[in-house]
């Protein structure tokens, strides 16, 4: 008869092996571990554990399980819920209630990175939150220095050199100097500086696109125009998250001329900068991809035709293009119909259960913000 052996002590294993084991756990299980012992609680709440766990998660992401999170632009009195869905099909996985208040229900996802989301009120963008729904923690950003303005553009980025996160807010009113504010999570505060890029130092940021500013090669990007009044000559402005320097990039050949009702967007496709444009009146969408970053290497990769006039509301990392067209009843707009197209296969999908335009961003589960200061748990 064998003797009862004592259960093995987890501590007998070297720390890097314990890490190997624990970082394989889904986020919820990791959170549960906090209740096991104090030492386990503190082991889990280190930046090293959080990033090792994140790397595990990222390695497991592929085209079939990649996710997005989206939020409708609502005008109703209450803020709608966020929806987590599969990138490829927009099949809903779950709905998440937003746990904080906005002064205005018209909120947008500014961007996401490593499971951390940045949400802001759309119109003036001065109420901003960082939120990790997987661990139920959020942080309200202090009020930016710059007040409300119609001419605000925003971006959210992971700063890899410092393992930090930044929120960028650009104010470019006509006939005025452009001002930039940057919030860093580690400092918990905003910094402000003036920028002068063009000949007359005036830039308009193309306001019509509501897609999040893409983070590619460590820089955030927006479409901008030079000159006063109706900007005719357009380009891409990039903001390097590490050096905090601005730079101009050319749009694909022939695309720099503005035209009325021309729909243009900039996004990220499989880690590369993508430029999306619809031929008026929105029956054909062309997508260019910058093959090699920073070098003139725009290649027109996809052309997506539509039977009806369509407008783009989202474009995902995996190449899902979400557009809508208006339904008409007795020649009056009576609602929107949304269609999802895989730009590589041109497969279309209709029954999405989406009624309103939305902002969408990449989503994954992570422990980011678990070690954050001044975060709210709910």
């Amino acid at each position, binding site marked *: 008869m064998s003797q009862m*052996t*004592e*259960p*093995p*002590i*987890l*501590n*007998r*294993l*070297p720390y890097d*092996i314990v890490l*190997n*084991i*624990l970082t*394989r*756990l*889904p986020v*919820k*299980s990791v*959170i*549960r*571990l*906090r*209740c*096991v*012992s*104090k*030492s*386990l*609680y503190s082991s889990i709440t280190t930046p090293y554990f959080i990033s090792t766990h994140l790397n595990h998660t990222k390695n497991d992401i592929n085209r079939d399980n990649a996710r997005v999170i989206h939020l409708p632009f609502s005008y109703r009195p209450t803020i709608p819920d966020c929806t*987590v869905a599969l990138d490829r099909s927009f099949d809903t*996985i*779950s709905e998440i209630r937003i746990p904080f208040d906005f002064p205005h229900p018209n909120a947008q996802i500014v961007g996401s990175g490593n499971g951390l989301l940045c949400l802001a009120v759309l119109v003036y963008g001065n109420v901003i939150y960082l939120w990790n729904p997987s661990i*139920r923690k959020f942080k309200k950003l202090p009020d930016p220095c710059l007040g409300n303005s119609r001419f605000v553009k925003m971006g959210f980025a992971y700063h890899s050199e410092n393992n930090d996160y930044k929120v960028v807010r650009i104010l470019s009113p006509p006939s005025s100097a452009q001002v930039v504010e940057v919030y860093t999570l580690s400092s918990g505060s905003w910094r402000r500086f003036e920028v002068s890029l063009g000949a007359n130092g005036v830039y308009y940021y193309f306001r019509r696109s509501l897609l999040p500013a893409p983070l590619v090669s460590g820089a955030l990007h927006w479409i901008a125009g030079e000159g006063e009044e109706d900007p005719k000559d357009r380009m891409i402005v990039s903001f390097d998250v590490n050096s905090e320097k601005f730079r101009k990039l050319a749009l694909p050949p022939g695309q720099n001329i503005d035209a009325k009702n021309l729909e243009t967007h900039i996004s990220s496709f499989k880690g590369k900068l993508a430029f999306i444009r619809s031929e008026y009146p929105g029956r054909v969408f062309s997508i260019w991809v910058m093959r090699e970053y920073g070098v003139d290497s725009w290649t027109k990769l996809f052309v997506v035709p539509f039977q009806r006039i369509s407008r783009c509301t989202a474009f995902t990392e995996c190449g899902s293009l979400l557009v809508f067209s208006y339904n008409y009843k007795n020649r009056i707009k009576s609602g929107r119909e949304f269609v999802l197209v895989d730009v590589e296969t041109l497969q279309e999908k209709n029954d999405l259960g989406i009624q309103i335009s939305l902002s969408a961003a990449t989503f994954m589960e992570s422990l980011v913000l678990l070690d954050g200061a001044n975060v709210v*748990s709910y």
Partner: protein
Amino acid sequence: MSSVKKVTLKSSDGEIFEVEETVAMESQTIKGLIEDDCADNAIPLPNVTGHILSLVIQYCKEHTSSSDSNSSKSNEKLKAWDTQFINVDLNVLFDLIMAANYLNVKGLLDLTCQTVADMIKEKTPEQIRAMFNIVNDFTPEEEEEVRRENAWAFEISLKNNNVVDTFEVEESMAKELQTIKNMIEDNYTDSVIPLHNVTSDILELVIEDCKKHVEAAESESEPSYSLASKLIDDPLKA
């Protein structure tokens, strides 16, 4: 005569194993020794007992032959073999982890660590403490607070088919029902359990049932399931 090159491995307790070189090279540690020409005599492995070494060799044999071009072993078959192989006593499992780490056999290290992670996934904090002999160094007040702060991590959502109502239920309670338990264990990591053909009223009764069952178990009395719970567990009958 066989022209297959072999190496000799010697365990900590003096057991000798003769192994094909290709199999032994699944271990990056041994591979390094062979390439550095240190493998003429028996390679001593003072950190691995004979019992564990024989298991590691078994693993390496199985995984070497599967990478042969002529091998008919499919991924599923290999996975099934792995599942069978890893079904060992917890002490042996930990020894295997240490051996896989020391011998640098990546596949085995991944398999063993994932197995332990999967064990942890299902367990409550009390069970984890028991399984791994971890000391609870919280004071009762501290423990209560940390449980309260993280209560949401112990809940799962039960949704009725119309997605109208969602009930947050403590997972250990919900697992009283076999169907739900199975769904959770099939990796519903998003913790939203959709229950088809169940209305909100029934769902409320079911949750009451779960609570009663847990209370009954604690007081060691015989629980009885209402018709509602039977509906969940046996939808055909309804």
